[in-house]
């Protein structure tokens, strides 16, 4: 595991003229630069979609219509969902993959650097289409991020813009996935067998397969939708022999694996951070790999649990209930493995570890509310209520987004060469965690009491909990500006990071200098 020469080589390379200034980024084929761009793109989208959520919570602060019209409210919820999923969470994980996969497997770069550039720059036109759709006649798409027809067939040209944006994002994801799979299979350092790969690399390998399998299905559904809208086909129009529910089946065949696309890399980040700060190897490495693979396979046979109220035949309902319940077994294995990793460790609680422990705890709450929803008769009461909103924010915010934050704190010393401000990092952690729970925990109660989601106004029995949620949401939104400040402060300066950074950290990325030089591992390291 030696790579002392790489620092020197990198220096030589830096001199022979890669573009500088703006062109450095536009033409970049360097996995670190592209990773950085992905992460900044994702953070920008995170703040924008978060601002949309502030609009939602402002309107829901009190019963009655105060600030925005109902159709604008629907635009906010729709674009909040689309941008958070496709603009914030997914690109953030691709950013991590770009930075960390080559560093962790001892590769000099990604397998296809130019494709890598393309898959990043495809994001920009897609983002422009989504953002610009607010300014076309009729406003942005308002049929929910799920875009169920026939409602989405009624929408204006912004629906077409969203569909086109998602097509582009799909191409970007598929290209990126092919790149990641090829890199992992072909460019591992000598001696690094598959079962010696860091857990984060394993989770991304499996995620990349999920993306390749799921994104074309979304593209199919969207293409049928757009031909229904403009070219007179009737895939989803019952009057022409189609079926509106067909869209839901195809959409969720993509949509459920998508959920795991957004959580498996988060599991990888946790499986990296927890052993570091417990100063103990990851417990049950092999079972972690098998559990991840099992979750990925099962994710393709549970889709219709999003559709329990459509009126499926009883055999379908039973099948999807059983398969959904089954997913909690491998997910449970993961949580138990993390606890066993912590058990009898020598733990310290720097910001990345705080985030990781909070994710284990809060994600499990989200897992439990998922199990409650899996019980079909109970889901009949909860489908399309705020309970579901609480559930998927517990898995997507406190699961995926907070893992991303933990991962940023964990690796940013390696990326920038500076330690972040630990005090401010901890402030960010506590503010985020408390505000998150104040925002989303009460939604379990409003949901149980029957408040439907996606409504701009509600009956007075829900007033108190909604006000609490709104106050929590404003605090949660503001806390993320602190995150931005901490990151910028860390880039600009701070205590010099050592190569090892964390005394318990294991892996090839800690053998290179901090900040990681522009080129690393031009001579492959040996893994024993």
């Amino acid at each position, binding site marked *: 595991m030696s790579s002392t020469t790489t620092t020197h080589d990198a220096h030589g390379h830096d001199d022979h003229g890669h573009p500088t200034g703006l062109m450095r980024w536009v033409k970049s084929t360097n996995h670190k630069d592209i990773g950085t761009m992905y992460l900044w793109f994702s953070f920008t989208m995170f703040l924008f979609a978060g601002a949309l959520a502030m609009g939602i919570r402002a309107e829901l602060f009190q019963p*009655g219509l105060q600030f925005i019209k*109902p159709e604008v409210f*629907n635009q906010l919820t729709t674009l909040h969902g689309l941008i958070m999923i496709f603009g914030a969470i997914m690109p953030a994980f691709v950013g991590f993959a770009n930075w960390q996969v080559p560093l962790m497997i001892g590769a000099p770069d990604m397998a296809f650097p130019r494709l890598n550039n393309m898959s990043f720059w495809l994001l920009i036109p897609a983002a422009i289409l989504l953002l610009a759709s607010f300014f076309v006649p009729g406003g942005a798409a308002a049929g929910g991020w799920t875009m*169920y*027809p026939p*409602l989405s067939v*009624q929408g204006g040209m912004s629906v077409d813009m969203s569909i086109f944006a998602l097509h582009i994002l799909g191409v970007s994801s598929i290209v990126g996935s092919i790149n990641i799979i090829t890199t992992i299979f072909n460019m591992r350092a000598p001696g690094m067998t598959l079962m010696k790969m860091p857990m984060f690399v394993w989770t991304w390998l499996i995620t990349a397969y999920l993306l390749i399998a799921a994104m074309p299905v979304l593209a199919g559904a969207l293409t049928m939708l757009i031909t229904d809208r403009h070219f007179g086909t009737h895939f989803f129009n*019952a009057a022409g022999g189609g079926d*509106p529910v067909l869209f839901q089946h195809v959409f969720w065949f993509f949509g459920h694996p998508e959920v795991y696309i957004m959580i498996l890399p988060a599991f990888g980040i946790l499986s990296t951070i927890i052993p570091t700060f417990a*100063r*103990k*190897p990851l*417990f*049950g490495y*092999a079972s972690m790999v098998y559990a991840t693979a099992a979750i990925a396979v099962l994710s393709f046979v549970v889709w219709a649990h999003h559709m329990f*109220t459509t*009126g499926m035949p009883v055999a379908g309902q*039973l099948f999807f*209930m*059983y398969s959904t319940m089954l997913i909690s*077994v491998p997910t*449970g294995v993961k*949580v138990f493995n993390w*606890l066993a990793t*912590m*058990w*009898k*460790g*020598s*733990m*310290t*609680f720097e910001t990345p570890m705080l985030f990781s422990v909070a994710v*284990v*705890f809060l994600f*499990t709450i989200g897992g*439990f509310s998922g199990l*409650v929803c899996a019980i*079909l*008769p*109970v889901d*009949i*009461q909860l*489908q*399309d*209520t705020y309970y579901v909103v609480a559930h998927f924010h517990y898995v997507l915010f406190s699961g995926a987004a907070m893992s991303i934050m933990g991962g940023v704190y964990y690796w940013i010393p390696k990326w920038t060469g500076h330690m972040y401000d630990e005090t401010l990092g901890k402030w960010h952690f506590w503010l985020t965690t*408390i505000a998150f*729970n*104040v925002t989303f*925990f009460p939604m379990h*109660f409003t949901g149980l009491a*029957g408040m439907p989601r996606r*409504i*701009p*106004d509600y*009956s*007075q029995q829900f007033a*108190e*909990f909604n*006000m*609490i949620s709104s106050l929590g949401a404003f605090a949660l939104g503001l806390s993320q500006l602190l995150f931005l400040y901490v990151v910028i402060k860390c880039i600009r300066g701070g205590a010099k990071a050592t190569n090892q950074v964390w005394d318990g950290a294991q892996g090839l990325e800690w053998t290179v200098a901090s900040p990681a030089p522009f080129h690393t591992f031009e001579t492959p390291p040996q893994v024993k």
Partner: protein
Amino acid sequence: MNKKAIFFLSTILGATFAQNGNAAYELNLRAPHSEIAHQIYDLHMLIVYVCLAIMVVVFGVMFYSIYKHRKSVGHEASQFHEHHLLEVVWTIIPAVILIAMAVPATKTILAMKDTSAADMTVKVTGLQWKWEYDYIGKDVKFISNLATTQDQIHGKSEKGENYLLEVDNPMVVPVGKKVRVLLTANDVIHSWSMPSFGVKQDAIPGFIKETWFRADAPGTYRGQCSELCGQAHGFMPIVVEAVSEEKYAAWIETKKAEAAAGAAGSDKEWTKEDLIANGKTVYEKNCAVCHQANGAGLPPAFPAMTGSKVALGAMWGADGKYLKDSHVDRLLNGKGVMPAWKAQLNDVEIASVITYERQALGNAATVDPIVQPSQIKAAR
């Protein structure tokens, strides 16, 4: 500790911001009022207790470990990283718990799906943004609209006790009878939800789906549309009144009489003022949600009524039939997102609302200024 924070915050905020007496911190599913809803309630409590028990054990271990196995208290890290028996055990135990959960859930699903031997059938149609109830074999059919006023919604008057959960025409059913509900929709997908009965079924255009309930006590039960169906998705509540069999029979007769009275109005000659007055009610109930109470519309999706070419143009051709794309045509047959109203409104209502749109909302049509219900009857 976060839950404690929530409790603390909610107490403080509740005391500070509580706005009205009937608001409550509802923490659980609504009180069940049918056999299925009872089963769901019990299933939910069971799984919540199971989850809480698992949480206490699992996070008990985690917090113990966080407390004891930290560097600051001088704990040295062990280096174990495998234990096959443990791994097998914690795979099998959850699987066993899941099977134990699946058994009662399966029983309830089979019961929910059994719509046989119903005492009566009601066909419910979701429309943007209201519900239509059709009592099969009873010749009773009506539309149920939100009854909350726009003033309440926009904060210009005090919000009532059942704000957003009240309708003009509730669905009335006899207590203790098995009611089979057939669901469909006219435009987009809606979802008919009645938490007290444990019912939620999507209403899908072009398909008929079925569900059932049996109310176990008299009362008024409230639900809301539960599938995003456009801008007024939050404004199409569902109200079911469960009453004794005698009251139900009397209600059926009243509904029939109302329909007959409505039909009789078609043959009468109406004055312009009466039409406008009646039309205002119809407009605010059915049209204002898109075209707005003041007629300004929400262009480009929903055109303004004020100054509209359709609302000011000629309606009748030389042959006495209505013109294509005229005001009458638009009302009867719809176009694009504008629904066809001929099946939902009677002759008097259509004539009144057309007259209202032509003579109010800033309009004063000179061509075909008013229309009589008899003309609509003939035009159908």
